[in-house]
C-alpha cells in the first residue's frame, strides 16, 4: 500500500512537472555511460538506443565500452568523475565490488543510474536502477499460453537459459508459476539451451524424439528468442509445422523472431526492451532539474508481441539497432 502510494505520488509529480522539466530538459548535460561490452545482440541494441535517446535529448553522452571487464568499468567511472560529468549510467557486468567507486561518485555529487542489472551495494550509493522484471516476463509468456490453449490439455516443453543465470531462473519461475494454476497445462520436459540457437535446436531435437516424434508436444517455451529460432528449425526438420502443430513462445523480441512471426512460425514473444536509457534519462531529468528523488527500482514494461502486432513493421524498426 505504502509503496503503491509512493509510486503514485512519483508518477503524479512526474506528470505535473514534465512540461516544466522538459523546458530545461537534459540539453547540454554531460552524461557518462559505462556499457558492459558487446556480449550479445540485445546489448548492442541497448547501446544504439541509448545513443539515439541521448542525441534526441541533446545530451553529450560519453560512451565507454568495458569489454566485459569490471576493472574497465571502474576505470571509466573514475574517468567520468574526474571529468565532472552531470550523471553516470552503468550497466554493471557483475553484481559485487562496486561500493568503493560508487562512494567516490556519491562524494562528487554525481547521481548514478544502474541499467538492466542490479548491484550488491547499499541503496544510497545510487539514484535508481532501471531494469526489467524477469519473473514477470516469464509470467506474461505463461499467461499468453493459458489464454491461447484455453482448457485444452497441453504438454509444454521448456528450453531454459544457461543454468544458474538469473534470467534463466526468473523466467522459469514466472512461467512455471503462471501455468501451474491451470491443471491441463503440464511442463513435460525442461532442459538448458544455454541461450544459443544451436543448443536450442539440439535440445528441441531431443524433446521431439522423446515425445513421440513431437506429436505429443503442444507448445515450446524458450527463455530467449534465439533458442526459439533454433527450436523452430528442429520442428521443421521433424516434419511438423512450428506455430501451428507446436506453438512457439519466447522472450526478448529480437528482429529474427519477428521474421519468424511473418512466416507464421512463431506465436508470441515478450519484449525485453533495449530502451533502458529512456526511463533513466527521465528520472535524471526530474532529479537534476527539480530535485525529485525517483523510486529505487524502475521496472520497464514487459510487452507481449504476437503476429497481430505488425511483425514486419517491428522487424524493420529493430533491424538497424544492431541486434
Amino acid at each position, binding site marked *: 500500500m505504502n509503496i503503491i502510494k509512493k509510486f503514485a505520488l512519483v508518477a503524479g509529480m512526474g506528470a505535473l512537472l514534465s512540461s516544466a522539466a522538459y523546458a530545461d530538459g537534459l540539453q547540454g548535460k554531460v552524461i557518462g555511460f559505462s556499457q558492459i561490452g*558487446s*556480449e*550479445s*545482440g540485445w546489448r*548492442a541494441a541497448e547501446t544504439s538506443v541509448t545513443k539515439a535517446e541521448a542525441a534526441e535529448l541533446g545530451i553529450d553522452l560519453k560512451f565507454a565500452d568495458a569489454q566485459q571487464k569490471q576493472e574497465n568499468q571502474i576505470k571509466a567511472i573514475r574517468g567520468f568523475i574526474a571529468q565532472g560529468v552531470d550523471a553516470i549510467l552503468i550497466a554493471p557486468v557483475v553484481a559485487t565490488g562496486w561500493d568503493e567507486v560508487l562512494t567516490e561518485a556519491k562524494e562528487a555529487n554525481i547521481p548514478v543510474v544502474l541499467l538492466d542489472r542490479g548491484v550488491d551495494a547499499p541503496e544510497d550509493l545510487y539514484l535508481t536502477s532501471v531494469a526489467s522484471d524477469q519473473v514477470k516476463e516469464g509470467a506474461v509468456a505463461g499467461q499468453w499460453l493459458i489464454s491461447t490453449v484455453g482448457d485444452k490439455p497441453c504438454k509444454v516443453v521448456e528450453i*531454459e537459459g544457461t*543454468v*544458474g543465470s538469473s534470467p534463466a531462473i526468473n523466467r522459469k519461475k514466472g512461467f512455471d508459476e503462471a501455468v501451474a494454476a491451470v491443471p491441463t497445462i503440464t511442463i513435460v*520436459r*525442461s*532442459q*538448458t539451451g*544455454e*541461450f*544459443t*540457437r*544451436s543448443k536450442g*535446436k*539440439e*535440445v528441441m*531435437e*531431443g*524433446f521431439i*524424439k*522423446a515425445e513421440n*516424434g513431437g506429436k505429443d508436444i503442444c507448445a515450446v517455451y524458450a527463455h530467449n528468442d*534465439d533458442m526459439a*529460432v*533454433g527450436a523452430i*528449425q528442429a520442428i521443421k*526438420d*521433424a*516434419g511438423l509445422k512450428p506455430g501451428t502443430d507446436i506453438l512457439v513462445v519466447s522472450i526478448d523480441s529480437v528482429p*529474427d523472431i519477428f521474421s519468424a512471426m511473418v512466416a507464421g512460425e512463431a506465436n508470441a514473444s515478450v519484449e525485453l526492451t533495449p530502451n533502458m536509457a529512456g526511463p533513466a534519462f527521465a528520472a535524471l531529468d526530474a532529479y537534476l532539474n527539480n530535485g525529485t528523488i525517483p523510486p529505487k527500482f524502475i521496472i520497464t514494461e514487459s510487452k507481449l508481441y504476437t503476429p497481430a502486432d505488425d511483425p514486419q513493421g517491428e522487424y524493420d524498426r529493430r533491424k538497424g539497432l*544492431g*541486434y
Partner: protein
Amino acid sequence: MKRLNWKGALLRPQFAALAAVLFINWLLFPGFFDITWQDGRLFGSVIDVLNRGAPVAILAIGMTAVIATKGVDLSVGAVMAIAGAVAAVMVTSGSPAIVAVAAALAVGLLCGLWNGVLVTYLEIQPIIATLVLMVAGRGLAQLVTEGSIVTFSDPVLIFIGTGAFLGMPMPVVIAVCLMLLATLAVRRTALGLLIEAVGVNRSAARFAGISSGVLLLVVYTFCGFCAATAGLIVAGDIRGADANNAGLWLELDAILAVVIGGTSLLGGRFSIPMSVVGALIIQAMNTGILISGFSPEFNLVVKSGVIILILVLQSPLVSQWVSARTTALPVRGPKRKPL
C-alpha cells in the same frame, strides 16, 4: 602394413564405453534406437548422436594430429566462429556460395598456418601460441559479423549444415569422408610414422632426417582446415553465423574426444578413428541427458562422472589389473613383470 585386428579393435575400452552409454540411453528412453524415414532422410535419436557429434568429431580429427606431435590447438572453437562468420557475411553480401565456402576454408587454413608458424619458427609453446588465436579469434569473428548474428538463406550453405546424402545428414557424411581420408593419409603413407616420431622426440626426429618444421606447419594447418569445416557446418545448421557462441568451448570437447580415444597428450602413438569414437561417446552422453528428462542442473555432474569412469577404465593400472585377472584371454601389450 599390419592387418587390422578387428576382434582386438572392438574389444577396446572405448567401444565398450560407447556401447554402455548407448545402452543406458536405451534404458532411459526405449525409443532410442528407433529410426524412421522422414523427408528423404533418416530420423531418430541415433542419427542425432551422429549428426550433433559430427562437428566435434571433425575437430577431433585435426586435433589428434596436433596432439600426436605433442602439441595442442586451443583455437579451433574460435576458428569455427571465424569461418562461419566469413561464409555468412560473404553470401549475404552477394558472393556465390562456392566462393564463400572456399574463402571460409582458406581462412581456416591461414589460421592454422599462423598457429603453426608461432609453434615452429617462434618456438612458442603450443598451448600459449594457440591461446592467442583462441582469445583474439572470437573478437575477429565478432568484427566480421559486427557483433550480430548474420542470418542467411543460401541453399548451399544450409545444405552443408542440414542437407542429407543417401539419407545421412551432410555433417555425418563430411565427418566420415574426412576421417577416412585422414586415416588413409597417415596410415597408408609414412606421414603417420613421421608425426609420431616428431611427437615422441622432435630433436631426434630432426636428426633422423625428418623436416619436423614443415611437418608441424602441415599438421596445424590441417587442424585449422578441420575447424573451418566444422564452423561451416554449425553455421549452416542454424542458418546464421553466431560469432559469440559458435564453437564456444568446443576445443575442450575436441581435446577430450582425443584423450578418450586413447591418444596421449605427451605425443606419439595416435588413432584418428578412435578420436572420432571419443567424440561419439561425448555426444551420446549429451543426447542421452537431453532425452532422459533429468533436470539440467545435473548435466555436467553426470557428464563428468561418466568421463572419469571411462578414463579410469583406460588407465594403465586398470588394464594391468584386468590382464592379470583374465589370463585365459590373449594379453595385448606388455605384461607386468613379476617383482
